Structures are given as C-alpha cells and as structure tokens.
C-alpha cells in the first residue's frame, strides 16, 4: 500500500504527548519524531499505511484536544523523495526516515517484480482462468436451459386454462337473457374447444344451461332410439326357457321387466308367482 506521512502540531507538549501515546497504543504507525518550533509549538510526524495514518491522526487529534491545544493536523499520501529529504531535516530520527525511504523503494521494486512475474507467468496464469471461465460458461447456460423450459411448459397451460374460461363465461351471461344468434356463436366456440376442455367445463359447471338442454334433448332422443332398438331386439329374440327354469322368483321378475311386450307390468309382476311368470314367458315365446 501507499506509504503516507501524518503530522500533528500543537502548542505545548501535553497535548502532543497524549496524542503520541494514543497513536503508539492503538495503531501500527511509526512515530518519525518530534520537532520543536519557536513559541511553544511542537509538531509530531508519523508514517505508515495511509489508512492507519489517517485513523491514528484522527484519534490523536481528538485525544490531544481533550487535554491541550492542537493547532492542526495533516495526512500526506505518497510523499515524494524531496519531501522525505525535507522530513529528514526536520525530524532528525534518521533511522526511521531511512526505513521509510527504503520501504518506498522496496514497494516500487516489488511492484516491478510483480509486473515481471505477471508477464512471465501470463501463459501459465491464463490457462486456469480460461478453464474456469469455460466451466462457468458451460454451467450457466445449462442452469438457464434447465429453468426456462419448466416455465415455458407451465405458462401455456395457464394461458389455455384462463382464456377459454373467460371466453365462455362472458357470453353465457348474455345468452341467457338475449337472442338466438349468440347461441350459435356459443356452440361454435364449444365446437372449437377440445373434448377434454369440454369435459372440464362440464365438471366445473361452466357450460351454459341452454346448450346443456340441447345436448340433453339430443341425448334423450338417442336414448329413446336405443331403447326402441333394444325393444325390437328383445321382441325378436326368443326367451330362454331353459334359463327361466333355473331362475329364482326375483330373477324372473327382473327378467320379465326387461321385456316391454310382457303381458303383465309394474306391480303385477312383483305380485306374480314363479309359475305364473314361467307360463307367461312360455306364452310370449310361443308368439
């Protein structure tokens, strides 16, 4: 780091000694020396890391102001060689000043060495960095691709869910009160939807009443047709007399109810005995 010099000036030794004591106790900065001026002014110089020097001089001035008069304080970052020569004249603690000079020189040399080492080892240093970068480049997109598709899959589902519900629910309110052509639009909308969505809507009760009614009419017509066809089939089909002989009374009654052309109906079947039912079946089968 940058070597810097800090200065405190006070009138009287008390404040300066207090400041020096605080600095010595609380910071690694070195005290270069004390210089006596005329008229009771004394100045103290310290050196060290710029941060340490700044902190030390703040603490020293605060401590000194409690006790005596501190005139001024200053921090000089990266003093030039000429300034250090002046300091050497002002503060006769030569060893410390020489150390400061040596430190600065050593720092510069270290920087040069570092630069040289950087240039010499560039190829060796760059390889691992490139590897790390490649790993990051590989790893990041994989993470992104892992994350994005999930979102892509989720989003369209929600959209498909939301939009049709809105489309259907809005016309349904209008249709119940208003005219027929909107019914047609509805039906078209229904046709455009897929069967799964229709089922969903039916389950949720979203389908309109009129359409349900129409569907129910259609379904009833179909049921009637089915039933008629069944009647014809049953009328045409012969009664299994062998099966009837093995049946219970209850089974015979149920069997009789399946035949629309059975002479007895309703409660008469339930009141009838087994023998009566068998005779009736025989009469049907003969016809």
């Amino acid at each position, binding site marked *: 780091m940058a070597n810097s010099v800090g200065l405190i000036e006070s*009138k*009287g*030794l*008390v*404040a300066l*000694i*207090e400041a*020096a*004591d605080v600095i*010595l*106790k609380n910071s690694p900065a070195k*005290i270069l*020396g*004390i210089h*006596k*001026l*005329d*008229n*009771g*002014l*004394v100045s103290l110089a310290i050196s060290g890391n710029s941060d340490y020097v700044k902190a030390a001089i703040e603490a020293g001035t605060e401590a000194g102001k409690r*006790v*005596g*008069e501190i005139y001024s304080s200053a921090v000089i970052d990266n003093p030039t060689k000429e300034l250090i020569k002046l300091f050497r004249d002002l503060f006769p*603690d030569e060893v410390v000043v020489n150390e400061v000079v040596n430190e600065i020189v050593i720092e510069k040399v270290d920087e040069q060495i570092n630069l040289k080492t950087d240039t010499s080892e560039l190829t060796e240093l760059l390889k691992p960095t490139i590897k790390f970068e490649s790993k990051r480049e590989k790893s990041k997109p994989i993470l992104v691709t892992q994350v994005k598709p999930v979102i892509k899959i989720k989003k369209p589902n929600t959209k498909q869910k939301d939009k049709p519900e809105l489309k259907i629910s809005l016309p349904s309110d209008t249709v119940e009160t208003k005219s027929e052509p909107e019914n047609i639009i509805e039906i078209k909308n229904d046709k455009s939807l897929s069967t799964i969505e229709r089922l969903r809507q039916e389950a949720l009760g979203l389908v309109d009443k009129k359409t349900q009614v129409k569907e129910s009419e259609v379904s009833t017509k179909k049921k009637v047709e089915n039933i008629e066809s069944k009647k014809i089939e049953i009328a045409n089909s012969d009664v299994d007399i062998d099966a009837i002989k093995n049946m219970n009374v209850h089974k015979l009654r149920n069997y009789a109810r399946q035949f629309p052309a059975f002479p007895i109906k309703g409660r008469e079947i339930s009141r009838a005995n087994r023998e009566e039912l068998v005779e009736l079946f025989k009469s049907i089968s003969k016809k």
Partner: protein
Amino acid sequence: MTFESLGIIETSSVSASLKTLSGIAKEKEIEIVGKQILGGGIVTLFIKGELGAIKRAISFGKDSLDLKSDFRSSNIIPLPHQQLLLKFGMEKL
C-alpha cells in the same frame, strides 16, 4: 505489581514551573523524570509514580500556582507506551 504512570504539567513560564515543583514536592512517592523547555516560556514537567500519587502531586502543583494564566494544562497517562518517552528524548520509565 505496581504500574508506573506518567504525569505531565505544563506552565506558561519558568517561574510558574518552579512554583509547581515546590507544590509537587509535598508528595514524596513520585519521581521527577524530566523537563522540556519549549519556546515562548512554556515549560513542561514530567513525573512518574503510582497513579494516585501522581494525581495528588498534580493537584498540589495546580494549587501552588497563584495565577490561572500560569497554568496551561496537565495530563495523566496511566500506562504510557514504552517508546513514548524515548520518542520525546527522555529516559525509559
């Protein structure tokens, strides 16, 4: 184990410093380490000893001064750093 602490008294003239010395002499458990004569008549006295003795000595020194203008300031450092007095050109405590 007794820790020796440092007391500093600063006066604005040599005669005032002599008055303080006569006041300090009442307390016998302290030792006068040295003096510094700055410019402008400012004289600083350094005393060492136990903390309570130094407090008493400084109070006696203040009392012995007649004028308020003679006394500048005083300070007690209970546990001075080892290099402190070396930096100020005085012997080690």
